[in-house]
């Protein structure tokens, strides 16, 4: 295991990169979705509701398979993605994993935020409307800032689940941590348990970091 630390770190490098870009994208999309869901426009509201129920109720692996093997048939592919940073290659596999994971996780972020929106008393939005803020202002200035605080725990859970879900990309052409682990267990069958432990600890450390960030946000915002 010690001889293969570079494989270990490279695998987790991909995992971490994937997590970070997906976290940003799924937060952005999740916020958009929740704004649609609680907004006043009926068409957008039903659009977001349908999106969330369809994508959230689909297994993640199916979404990966769709983007890898079905979407190319109708002309959607990510072959054009060619970003190379140092020894890391962000190509089709990374882009597809990014799209699949972000679209999937956005649903859970949206629902987490929605629980937060519901936790904001009606009077807050009424007071915001009463001073003349339009819907966008009511949301961005008053409801969402409070909703996001209230939804730190559920959104953090969604992101932690997403961090572990990056491992699904292992069987879809991406050499992230789980793929690196499987490469090593194949080469060193006799040390399988040690290898498993190392990678499990790697994931635990990453998840712990995310939960600690979440906890500190919760604590900081509780004072206010």
């Amino acid at each position: 295991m010690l001889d293969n630390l570079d494989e270990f770190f490279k695998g987790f490098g991909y995992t971490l990169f994937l997590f970070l870009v997906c976290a940003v994208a799924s937060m952005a999309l999740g916020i958009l979705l929740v704004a649609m869901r609680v907004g006043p426009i009926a068409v957008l509201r039903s659009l977001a509701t349908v999106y969330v129920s369809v994508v959230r109720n689909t297994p993640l692996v199916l979404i990966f398979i769709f983007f890898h093997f079905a979407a190319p048939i109708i002309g959607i592919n990510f072959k054009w993605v060619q970003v190379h940073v140092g020894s890391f290659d962000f190509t089709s596999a990374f882009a597809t994993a990014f799209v699949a994971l972000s679209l999937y996780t956005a649903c859970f972020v949206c629902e987490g935020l929605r629980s937060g929106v519901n936790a904001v008393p009606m009077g807050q939005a009424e007071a915001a409307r009463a001073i003349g803020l339009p819907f966008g202002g009511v949301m961005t200035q008053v409801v969402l800032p409070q909703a996001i605080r209230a939804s730190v725990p559920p959104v953090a859970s969604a992101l932690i689940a997403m961090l572990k879900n990056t491992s699904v990309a292992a069987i879809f052409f991406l050499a992230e941590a789980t793929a690196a682990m499987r490469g090593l267990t194949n080469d060193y069958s006799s040390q399988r348990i040690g290898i498993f432990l190392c990678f499990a600890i790697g994931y635990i450390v990453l998840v712990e970091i995310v939960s600690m960030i979440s906890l500190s946000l919760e604590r900081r915002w509780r004072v206010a």
Partner: protein
Amino acid sequence: MTATPEAAVAPGSARPGEPLVELHGVQKWYGDLHVLQDIELTVGRGEVVVVIGPSGSGKSTLCRTINRLETVDQGDIKVDGKPLPQEGKALAAHRADVGMVFQSFNLFAHKTILENVTLGPIKVRRTPKAQAEARAQELLDRVGVGQQAAKYPAQLSGGQQQRVAIARALAMEPKVMLFDEPTSALDPEMIKEVLDVMVDLAERGMTMIVVTHEMGFARTAANRVVFMADGRIVEESDPETFFTQPESDRARDFLGKILKH
């Protein structure tokens, strides 16, 4: 103190009788419940109207229809001669001109006291931040919570919070102020500090529609008392007449219960 717009429409300078808020033939149902029935009400510029009545009489609903936090099923509502817009930017602009103070204060929990007061001027009126903050500080000083500007709402007492809510509404330079039971959620010892601010506001000539149970305020500050029961305006008159010689049985009954306390 610098001259403020509400000072500019002080009782003496107001054009008496000119209607500012007009409700005509207003009807509203909650399912089968007819919560507002044939409401006819005109409030003149600079006038202070107190709406009283037993709970469930529709007085809060009436108040909330004037800035369209409640929609109506029939009838016209005009503010400053213009009918209420249905929705969108025009409605937001209308609401900016109608100040509202809620029973439960509804201060923005994630913003400081100062930010609560400057949010509307900055985001809606596009006032430069420094100017908005100076004006906000002035208003907070006037309602007596200037020292608390940097705190968050949860750190203030109920009475202080409600005074901040009044300052927040005033910061928008509203044409009319709506008060929806502003003291009902307050501990008794805090009621006076809020009423003092409201009396001061009335004396400066602000047009006010106040839903309240505070008969003292009605006596001292109101130009007119509107008594509601079962979704109707049963009686309206000047405070002295209303409290001493109520016309309707409903009003006499109501006053009898209230004044015994």
